[in-house]
């Protein structure tokens, strides 16, 4: 009695199992191991079955870009003067009630002609910071890493590999609509483009502008 009560206190339980296995013979022991393996396998199976819905749940946000996007109105097309670039904001079409202010999205609308628009995302093509429009010098400047773009969205200087992202647009009735709903980034809005010696191309542009 006293030996048994001391057992679990002081000595490890290892040798006792050995003793038990000696008593019970190899057949009994191997059956026990088999049952243990069955237990492990059963847990693995149940775990796998439960993992499938968990993985599906975790991957729920991964969807096609098109399923997130829809046409959003930016207001009356005539509200945008020809030859000017204006900052507009709109409600993101894909929202949850607890999004708060984050569903305000901004864009720059540049009207080139009666029915010709370019709608730029405000996100710098380098790392997504919000670019600012300077109408005096006709440049977009990024406050983060110094990316600069011309009025037509093409890259002027700094680290961006490409010009500003643009939204698809259409005019419905009097309304200017854009296909929005997703934060523009290099994986969805456009692929990387190679810049062939920016100094040269911009130089030509500059010359032409000067002569014209």
């Amino acid at each position, binding site marked *: 009695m006293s030996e048994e009560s001391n057992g679990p206190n002081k000595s490890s339980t290892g040798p006792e199992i050995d003793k038990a296995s000696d008593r019970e013979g190899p057949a009994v022991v191997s059956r026990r191991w088999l049952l243990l393996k069955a237990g492990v396998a059963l847990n693995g199976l149940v775990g796998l079955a439960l993992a499938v819905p968990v993985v599906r749940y975790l991957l729920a946000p991964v969807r096609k870009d098109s399923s997130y996007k829809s046409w959003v109105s930016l207001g009356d097309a005539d509200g945008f003067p020809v030859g000017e670039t204006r900052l507009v904001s709109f409600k993101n079409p894909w929202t949850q009630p607890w999004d708060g202010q984050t569903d305000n999205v*901004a864009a720059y609308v540049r009207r080139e002609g009666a029915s010709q628009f370019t709608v730029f995302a405000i996100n710098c093509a380098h790392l997504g910071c919000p670019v600012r429009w300077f109408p005096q010098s006709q440049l977009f*400047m990024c406050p983060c890493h110094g990316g600069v773009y011309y009025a037509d969205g093409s890259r002027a200087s700094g680290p961006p590999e490409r010009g500003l992202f643009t939204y698809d647009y259409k005019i419905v009735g009097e309304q200017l609509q854009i296909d929005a709903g997703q934060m523009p980034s290099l994986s969805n809005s456009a692929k990387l483009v190679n810049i062939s010696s920016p100094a040269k191309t911009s130089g030509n542009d500059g010359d032409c502008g000067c002569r014209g």
Partner: protein
Amino acid sequence: MPGMKQSGRRIYDWFEQRLQVEGPIKDAVLHKVPRNTASWWYVFGSAAFTLLMLQIVTGILLALVYVPSAAEAWNSLNILNHQVPLGWFLRAVHAWGSNFMVAVVFIHMAQVFLFGAYKFPRELTWTVGVFLLLMTLGMAFTGQVLRFDQDAYWGLGIGVFILSRVPWMGGGLVHLLLGGPTIAGATLSRFFALHVFVIPGTLLFLALVHVWMVIKLGINEWPMPGRLVRKSTYIAEYNQLTHEDGIPFVPGAFWKDLIFSAAVLAAVGVCAAVFGPAGPGGQPDPSITQTVPKPDFPFLWIYAVLSYLPPSMETPFILIAPILMIAGLLAVPFVASEGEKSWHRRPVAVLALASVAVGWGVFTHLAMNTPWSPHMGAWSGDTLPLEYLREATPLVRQGAVIFQAKQCRNCHSIGGHGGERGPALDAVATRMTPDQMRYKVVTGGGNMPAYGKNLSPPEIEALVSFLETLHPKGEPPAFDASQQAAQSNPAPGGSNTP
């Protein structure tokens, strides 16, 4: 009194009989460590653990008030700052605790590296330590997101743009990171889960594994030049060292840990009381473009590196460099598991550490000043030094106005004010002739946009005549020698020259 002591002893025994922790704790506390490890150099690990405890406690306290909802998080932080009594102090302690924890973890790692403590048999301790470092940085980043102000929003945006560069799965990874197509409610919820459950749980577990290994393998002995680590003999040598010249960990070495931890906690408290909480900055409304986002201190160096990379290097660097860095850190104990521990005989290690430290310092310093960013308000806010305009002609004055109005000042400083993206123009006339200036303004080049389309020829003329006046008093402006020669010495045949 003796009766009380006896009943206290009985209660202790009752618990001990059931818990049976006295033995393992005594073993851990009294295990012998080499006498010379009772050094002030060996206190950073325990300080990091203390800070982790502080972060857990203050984090739980903040969670009593904080609302992890995109619509309410920013408001709840302001209520913590301004309405909840001493809420600002709790926020400040948590923020400064985070800064101190990142710093102490880095110092601890540098010390371990310098002392060769990662060598056999402590390779796995180092490996776990690398993951602890990554998780500490992960906590710092997710914590910045929970602040949910403009810096948090646009910092996440940078994360989006980094992930979006991953080939093929970039788009999917962005959706996973954000919990949807944009930074919104779902994003904050998942960063809350990461910051409060996933990362700290793993961090605490790994920290305990780390400490377990430190206790089981013994504290690294003080490195002596010439005492080489060999896998075949090290354990015996270490045991002999602790046997002959060892002292019990408590109190021999532990009192320094205690005092240093208390000092670090006090420093966190003082910084929190003096400097206050971090933010929140502007409200997380992405339609507000009047913002200059900046990451928190631990990530400033990355911010600087990203602005200096040439465009063609961006994607390969962003995708490959972190993998190489982490792989390099993990490889350290396996590449050099034996040999010298002393820094006196490891010049490459010392040099590597010094280079990393200097590089980190330089990039962090640069990121604090951001010389690559245009100063968004320079054109409208910075004044021109009076002496530059004192005897100026109307044309020069017109040029000065154009210089300001066309945002040239955002990138070029004059009189020490303005952007630093381009060169300062106080002495530009000594470097460039008027023709060269005209060409540069019209065509741009390098990091300068071309202004040919945005300036009329009269504007360019006025601007250049202003720039021509920018030279120190005793220093004449640059001139085109060939033009001067042609004017003073007309070629024979006069007007027929091509």
